[in-house]
């Protein structure tokens, strides 16, 4: 029987990885459809808002990476128990996600001088963001409440990219470091990461 979910993205982590991590953490099978850049122009006009990722489920095609990730988290029980807990998880995800476009901008910058400038801005934003998150984070080893939720996976995803940029960053923030380690040590995530293909972004 075909998996219930079909995720379409490029052959990269980028904006598709959050949802992949969520399904992995829950041990839920999904079709991991990866498009080449050559295939994309033909597919673009068929998409709801001209972008990727997409999630097809029950005959419906969803877009917007966080709407997709949140949906997946809810479906597999990783969104949070109450409306309030869910809102708190959303809050963390929204703040963490502000790093994404800045880091992507840095990654794809070709001009050396501009890149150095952007690197400085990104490093400052990382400190600002991590300081805010550290202050708000729970003390039970997870960002919100006392168990792993999708916000921990979203943080892990972006924090991994930050570690590539500047190794050892997360260790300066004890509560964030605990959440990061707990995701990394989660047996399903560890297994997923062990076989995950290396991609530049």
């Amino acid at each position, binding site marked *: 029987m075909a998996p219930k979910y079909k995720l379409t993205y490029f052959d990269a982590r980028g904006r598709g990885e959050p949802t992949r991590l969520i399904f992995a953490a829950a041990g839920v099978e999904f079709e991991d459809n990866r498009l080449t850049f050559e295939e994309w122009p033909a597919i673009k006009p068929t998409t709801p*808002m001209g972008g990727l990722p997409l999630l097809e489920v029950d005959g419906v095609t969803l877009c*917007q990476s966080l709407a997709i990730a949140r949906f997946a988290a809810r479906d597999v029980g990783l969104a949070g128990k109450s409306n309030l807990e869910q809102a708190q998880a*959303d809050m963390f995800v929204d703040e963490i996600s502000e790093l994404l476009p800045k880091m992507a901008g840095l990654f794809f910058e070709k001009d050396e001088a501009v890149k150095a400038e952007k690197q400085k801005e990104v490093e400052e934003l990382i400190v600002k963001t991590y300081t805010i998150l550290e202050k708000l984070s729970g003390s039970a080893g997870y960002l919100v409440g006392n168990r792993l939720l999708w916000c921990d996976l979203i943080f892990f995803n972006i924090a991994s990219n930050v570690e590539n940029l500047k190794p050892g960053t997360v260790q300066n923030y004890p509560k964030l470091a605990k959440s990061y380690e707990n995701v990394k040590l989660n047996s399903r995530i560890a297994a997923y990461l062990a076989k995950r293909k290396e991609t530049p972004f």
Partner: protein
Amino acid sequence: MPSYKLYYFHGRGRAEPARLMLAAAGLPYEDIRLEYEQWPEYKPKMPMGQAPVLEVDGTMICQSVAIARFVAKESGRAGKTNIEQAWADMMADGFVDMLNKMADYVWYEEDEARKAEKKKTFFDTTLPEFLGYFEKLLVANNGGGGFFVGDGLTHAEAFFLCLSDDIIAEKPNVLSPYPKLAALVERIKTYPGIKEWLAKRPQTPF
């Protein structure tokens, strides 16, 4: 019933979607509008040093979209199934993308020439592309004579109204090529609770 306090400035801005959903739900709340001089005193009290913040029985929620979604869920106006909720989120995110692009040239660009250029690109290229998607997505929901999701108003409509207010202020005919979107604006404006709020809300520049 929980007590709600919404902290923001004297403006619609990033608090208005939550205010619209509170109005639609008929939920009483304290609509706290801070003066800029008060902000240094309040900033350290806010979870992420920013506004809007919704305080719910003493718990503070920040991030404007998380707040609007929370309020929507409190009155069952976020979508009935998980898929409907995702659809509402998806639409809201699409509108927020457009609002962020506007904010980029209105608030964050200081160079006048670049400001004008960004605004032109937004209205000539970006916005029409996305209004096209939004019209199509509205029509996909049972012909587009209702709402974006299912058969009721959700936070998708709240964000859409905020976007249309801003783009229509700049370009009054901007929705003429998109008849279903234009008709939806009128439906939102007459929605019980929202209609009364729109009549009494403070008129502010942003």
